[in-house]
C-alpha cells in the first residue's frame, strides 16, 4: 500500500485487542479502505432543463471545466435541477418546469 500506515507493527492495535479474551482473536483488522459512492438525493436523476444526468455537470460547466461546482437545487415541490440550469430558467419564468408551481428553493446541494 502506498500510504504510510500509522499502525505499522504486525501486532494488533491495542484498542482492538483489548476487546478480546486471553490470547486474542485469530483475525485482527489492521487496516481498512472503505469505499462509498455519493450521488444527489433526487427522485428523478435527469435534469429536465438540460436533459443531462444530474450527476454529470451540465454542458456549460463541462465546457468551462467547472464540474465540481455544478450542484443540484431542490424546489419546495421536491423537483430538482442543476443549479445553473435553474438560474437560466429563472430569467424567463418563476415556475417549476415540471409542475408549474411557483419555484421556491428548498435547498442547494453542496
Amino acid at each position, binding site marked *: 500500500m502506498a500510504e504510510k500506515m500509522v499502525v505499522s507493527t504486525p501486532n494488533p492495535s491495542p484498542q482492538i485487542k483489548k476487546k478480546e479474551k486471553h490470547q486474542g482473536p485469530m*483475525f485482527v483488522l489492521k487496516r*481498512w479502505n472503505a469505499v*462509498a459512492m455519493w450521488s444527489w438525493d433526487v427522485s428523478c436523476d435527469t435534469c429536465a432543463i438540460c436533459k443531462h444526468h444530474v450527476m454529470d455537470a451540465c454542458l456549460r460547466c463541462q465546457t468551462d471545466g467547472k*464540474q465540481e461546482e455544478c450542484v443540484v437545487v431542490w424546489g419546495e415541490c421536491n423537483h430538482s435541477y442543476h443549479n445553473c440550469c435553474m438560474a437560466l430558467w429563472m430569467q424567463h419564468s418563476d415556475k417549476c418546469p415540471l409542475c408549474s408551481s411557483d419555484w421556491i428553493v428548498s435547498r442547494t446541494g453542496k
Partner: protein
Amino acid sequence: MFHQEGIKFESKWENIALVAGKVLRQENIKKQEWWDLFQDISNVCNWDEKGAHKIHDELRQLIKQHINQIQESVLSNNDEASLLAAYIREWTRFFQQCNYLPLPFRVVEDAMRNKMAVATMKKDIDQSLIYKLMLQEWNDNIFHSIRDKIHGAAMRLVEMERSGESFDKQLVIGVRESYVNLSTDHTDPLRIYKEHFERKYLESTDNYYKAHASAYLASNGVLNYLKYADAKLAEEELRGKQYLETVKSIKSVELLKECLVRCLVDSFRDQILAECLKLITDNNIEYLRMMFMLIDRVPGAVSAILNHLEDYIYQAGLDDMRQCADTITTDPEKYVEELLKLFNRFSKLVAQAFNSDTRFLTSRDKAYKKVVNDTTVFKLELPTSRATTNKTAPESKCPELLALFCDQLLRKSPLSKKMTPQEIEEKLKNLLLVLKYVQNKDVFMKYHKSHLTRRLILEMSVDSELEENMVEWLRDIGMPVEFVNKLARMFQDIKVSEDLNQRFKENLHDQEPTTADSVNIKILNAAAWSRGSDYVPVALPTELDEYIPSVEEFYKKSHSGRKLQWHHLLSNGTVTFQNAVGTFELEVTTFQMSILFAFNQRPEDQISFESLKLATQLPDTELRRTLFSLVASAKLKLQVLKMSPAVKNAKDFDNSTNFFINQEFGIFRQGKLQKRAKLSLVGRLILTTEKAKKEEEEGIVQLRILRVQEAIVKILKMRKTVNNASLQTELVEILKNMFLPQKKMIKEQIEWLIEHKYMQRDEENINTFIYLA
C-alpha cells in the same frame, strides 16, 4: 544643293544602292558616304513625288539580291556544321545591319506613311518598315528555302550530343537565337521560334526517346531503366535550358518536360509499376525512391504506388500478427511491440523512399488502421441483450489488449517494477500511437477505466504523475471527451477523499481514540466511477460497523443533498492472521474479511455454507465467489480456508458444505515455510456483482445505440431531409472518435426512429429521410 531642281530618283539611286549595299555587306564606309546617304534619300523623297515608293521597291530588290548571295554562299557548305556556322554568321551580320540600314531610310517611311500619323509614330527600330522589310525578306527567301535544312542540322547536332559526341553548342544556340529574333509578327513575336524551332526540338526529342528508351528498357530491365530515365530526365532538362528559349513569356522548358515525361515515363508506366510490389517487399529504398520521383511526374499515376503500399502494409501486418498470434494474444506488451515495429518499419520506408509525402502517410495510416482493427487474429464479441436482436459483428481485441498493457505499465506490476518512469512514459507514448488508429475507442476507454478504478482503489499506481499525464495524453489523441472527463474526475475524487480523511481524523483526534487510524475512506462521485451498481449487503466486523455512522455524520456536515452508498465490493483491507505457525498479514477484500471474521468466534469449528450466508449476509453468488477465492487461491500452496467435501467449482458448494480455518496455514518463500509474511488475497479486484457485470458489458452496445440515435436525429434536425448515403457518411464522421458504427446497427436504429415517429421515409424515394419535429 537646296535649289537644284528636279532631283530625280534615277539620278540618285545608283549612289544610294552602292552605299546601302556596303552597309548590308558590313563593308567599311566613310562618314561622308553615310552622311550623303541620308541627304540623298531625303532629297529624293522631297523632290521626287514617287521617290519614296521607288526607293522602297528598289531597296527591297537590293536586299533580296543580297540575301540571295548569302543563300548561295551558305548553301555551298556541304557538311551540316559548317552550313550552320555559315548561316549563323550571315544571320548575325544581317541582323546587326537591320539596326543600321533603316536609319537613313526613315524619310522614306515617313513619306510612305500617312503624314498625319508620323507625329505619333514611335521611333522604335522595331516599328520601322525597313526593318520589317529586311526581316520579311530574310524570312521569305533564305529562311523559307533552307530552314528545314537548318533545324534538321541543329537537331542532328543535339542528337549527336545525346549520343555522347561533343560539338560547338553555339551552333544550336545561334540557330535558336536567329529564330527568336526573326520576328515579323508583332502580336506574337516568338511565333517563328515556336512553330519551327520549339516544335522541331520537341519532335526530335520525342522521336529519339521513343526509339532509345524502349530499346534500353528491353535490354536492361526495369530497374536499370529507372536509373536511365531518371538520369535522362535531368540531362534533357539541363539541355533544354541551354537550347530552348527561357524568357518568362514562353514555356518551352515546361513543354519539353511534359514531352519527356510522356515518352520516358508515361509510355512505360505499366512496366515500371509492375516492379513496385517487389521493390516494396525487398525494401529497396533506392529504386522505390526513383520510381516515386518518376511516376509522380505523371499526373495521377502515383495512386498505383499508393495502392501497392497500402495492400502490402496490410498484408505484411496481418502476416506478422498471424505468425506471432500465440504470443501476442496473451502478452499485450508483445502485441504493442509488434504493432509498433510494423509502424516504424513502414514509417521509415515512407520517409526514405517517399519523402514522407502526405499521400503516402495517408496510405500508411489507412493500412495500419486496417491491421489494428482487423478481426482475423483476435475477436472481441460484444455481448448484447436479447432485446436488440442478434449479435453484433466481431471487433478487434486490440483496444482491450492496449488497455491491459497500459494497466501493466501504470500498476505496480512485475513489468513496471523493472522500468524507470521515463521508460514507462516512453512505452505509454508508443501505446498511444497505436491507440490513435483504433476504431472503437469506447472499448479501450471502458477497459482502461476499469483498470484505473482498480489501481486507484487499491492504491496500486506506480506514479500518480504519470497517471494524470496519461489522462491528458488520452485527451490529446482525441479520445472521446466525455470519457476522458470522467477519468479526470476520478483523480479529483481521490484528492478530495484524501482531504476528507485528513479532516475527519483531525476532528476525531480531539476526542477519544478510535478505529480511525486504521481506516481510510474514499467517497467517490457515483457518476464518474460506476453508475447504478447495486448495494451489496455484507456483515462488517463490529468495530467497522460502529464506525460508519460517524463518517456519514461528518460527511453531512460539509455536504448536503447527497446520499451515500457504501460499496463494500470495492472496499478492502489488511488483517493479521495468527495461528500456530505464525503471524501473517493478509490483504483481503471486505467480503473475504467478513467471512474470515465469522470464524473469530469459533476458531476451531467447521461452519456450513448456510451459516456463513447468515453470518456474512452476502448474496449467494458473491458468497460462493468469495469462498472459492479463499479455499482455492491459485497462488497458494496452503489455503487459508479448507472445505469439506472438496469441490472443483464455486457452483458446486451446497448449503451443507463445511468450511474451517486451516490452522497449519503458512506461506512458502523459496520453498521455506515463513513464520511471518505478507500476502494479498485480493487478486483481481472485482468491480461489479455478477448481475451488474452483465449489464455493464451490454453497456457498450447500449451506449452505442443511444449515440447512433442521437447522431441521426442531430443530422436530420440540421438537414431536414437527407438521403441514406450522406446520412451514413455524416454519421461516421460524428461518431468516429468513439466507434465505427456498423451498418446493421445504423439500419436498426433508423427503423426504430421511424417507428417512434422521429423521422419518416420520403414517399417518393425510400432512400430519403425526412425529419419529424
